[in-house]
């Protein structure tokens, strides 16, 4: 039967564990030739006609009727049956543990997902690598150390949140889809900074104990929301400012292009985190204390991380334009530190978390030196 040749066809199934037994339905179909068609009367809402907008058919365009309703409580069946489909009985549960909307949702999640898909880029194709020119040794070493740090930390925003994906009720699939784009973004960031370190006569620099400790704490967070506070509000918010600094201090157009594109990606992640925490804090104000505890520890480790030479000096060298202008670079870093703290606190405000009284990040960069003296 059929014209496709299957190699050793006579051996297929010769040692099979189970015996093939056609279903009652298939036997009946074979005998009568009449289809059942009962499934045609077991549909979700019928007659839906989503219309594409000027940017195509986006998620928001199919949020129609019952399909547009995201439940406060995820389906009790705990399966991957699509939201809005006819749910049959006795579906095998996948054991989801995040079943409340507030535990993972963000009102901008569909928008951010579509935006992420539309604004994907390729580190191989979209970075003008051929324009990369040799840099003075101090600048290349500083850039390579910065790239080493970013290569080291970036993928945590893929590894850590995706651990929760499999625990999220599938009625909140938009969150899973967004997190999948975030994982893709972080793969690209890890790839592009590794490529940059190896593309211009340098190489990877020194890994960091404190960075690893910071990553471990993100990994060990007890809930998705706690991790979001630690990872996206502080960690990615901080890295977002670093990317902006990178765009500013880039010694070449190649570096500028890399940092600018990463900055765009990172700001989506921060946007999701901020909005998720806004949703969560509105529904469960008591979560604030859990977030504060995470941020108390995260801020402390962040300050320690940026109190060692391999973290401070590359940025100062790049900012100043070389070792000879190290002081100028430190001065610029001091100016930018205030922006980092300002934007972090603004995001906390936007999320509905009054972080100011508990924040240990000094608003004045010089206080970091005074405290150490």
């Amino acid at each position, binding site marked *: 039967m059929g014209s496709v040749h299957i190699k050793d066809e006579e051996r297929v199934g010769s040692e099979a564990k189970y015996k093939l037994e056609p279903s009652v339905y298939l036997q009946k179909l074979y005998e009568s030739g009449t289809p059942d068609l009962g499934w045609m009367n077991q549909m979700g809402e019928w007659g839906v006609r989503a219309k594409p907008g000027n*940017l195509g058919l986006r998620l928001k365009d199919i949020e129609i009727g019952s399909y547009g309703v995201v439940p406060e409580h995820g389906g009790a069946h705990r399966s991957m049956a699509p939201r809005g489909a006819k749910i049959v009985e006795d579906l095998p549960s996948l054991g989801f543990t995040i079943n409340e909307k507030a535990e993972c949702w963000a009102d901008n999640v569909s928008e951010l997902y579509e*935006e992420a898909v539309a*604004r994907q880029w390729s580190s191989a194709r979209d970075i003008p690598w051929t324009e990369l020119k040799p840099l003075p040794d101090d600048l290349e070493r500083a850039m390579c150390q910065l790239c080493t740090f970013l290569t080291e930390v970036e993928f945590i925003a893929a590894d850590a949140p995706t651990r929760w994906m499999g625990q999220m009720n599938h009625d909140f699939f938009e969150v899973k889809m967004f997190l999948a784009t975030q994982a893709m973004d972080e793969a690209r960031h890890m790839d592009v900074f590794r490529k940059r370190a190896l593309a211009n006569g340098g190489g990877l620099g020194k890994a960091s104990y404190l960075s690893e400790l910071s990553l471990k704490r993100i990994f060990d967070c007890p809930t998705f929301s706690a991790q979001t506070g630690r990872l996206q509000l502080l960690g990615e918010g901080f890295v*977002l400012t670093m990317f902006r600094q990178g765009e500013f201090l880039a010694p070449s157009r190649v570096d500028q292009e890399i940092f*600018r*594109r990463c900055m765009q990606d990172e700001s989506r992640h921060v*946007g999701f985190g901020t909005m998720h925490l806004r949703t969560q804090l509105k529904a469960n104000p008591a979560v604030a204390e859990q977030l504060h505890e995470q941020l108390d520890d995260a801020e402390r480790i962040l300050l320690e991380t940026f109190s060692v030479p391999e973290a401070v000096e590359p940025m100062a060298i790049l900012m100043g334009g070389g070792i000879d202008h190290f002081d100028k670079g430190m001065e610029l870093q001091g100016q930018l530190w205030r922006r980092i703290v300002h934007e972090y606190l603004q995001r906390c405000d936007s999320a509905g978390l009054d972080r100011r009284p508990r924040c240990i990040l000094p608003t004045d960069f010089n206080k970091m030196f005074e405290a150490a003296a």
Partner: protein
Amino acid sequence: MASFPDSQWFLTLGKLMHAEGELFRRLGYAETRFAVRVVPNNTGNGGDRIVGLVIDGYQLTEAKPIVDLNEYDPDFVICGKREIWDRMLGEIAEHGRPQLRHTLSSLALVGEELWLESTDQLREDKFYRFNQTLQELLNLAAKVPA
């Protein structure tokens, strides 16, 4: 002939944006309502000029003078003195893009020559989310006399 920051000047950029469709499609769509504020070089005398702009997808769909920013409710406002805007546009005219440290993002990061205003950090972050689109839009000024 319209000149920066006339609304018509921005609309001319918008036409070029439409013509350069492939470049912007490759960057991905953007959706933001924002404003450009041009502050006179000698501050304190008022006379700011504000233009409200809307990017919808791959097109600049609106450019109009704004009197009341609260009413316009932009995601963010990019503010700078006239001389800073002129310098950026001059560099774009000469090289097709501003110098490395004179891009929108770089200047806004330092915050002295160019700065952002917004009512909400989440909305201000759209400046970063769509930064390349914003910069490429301004870079089209290389083809339009300022």
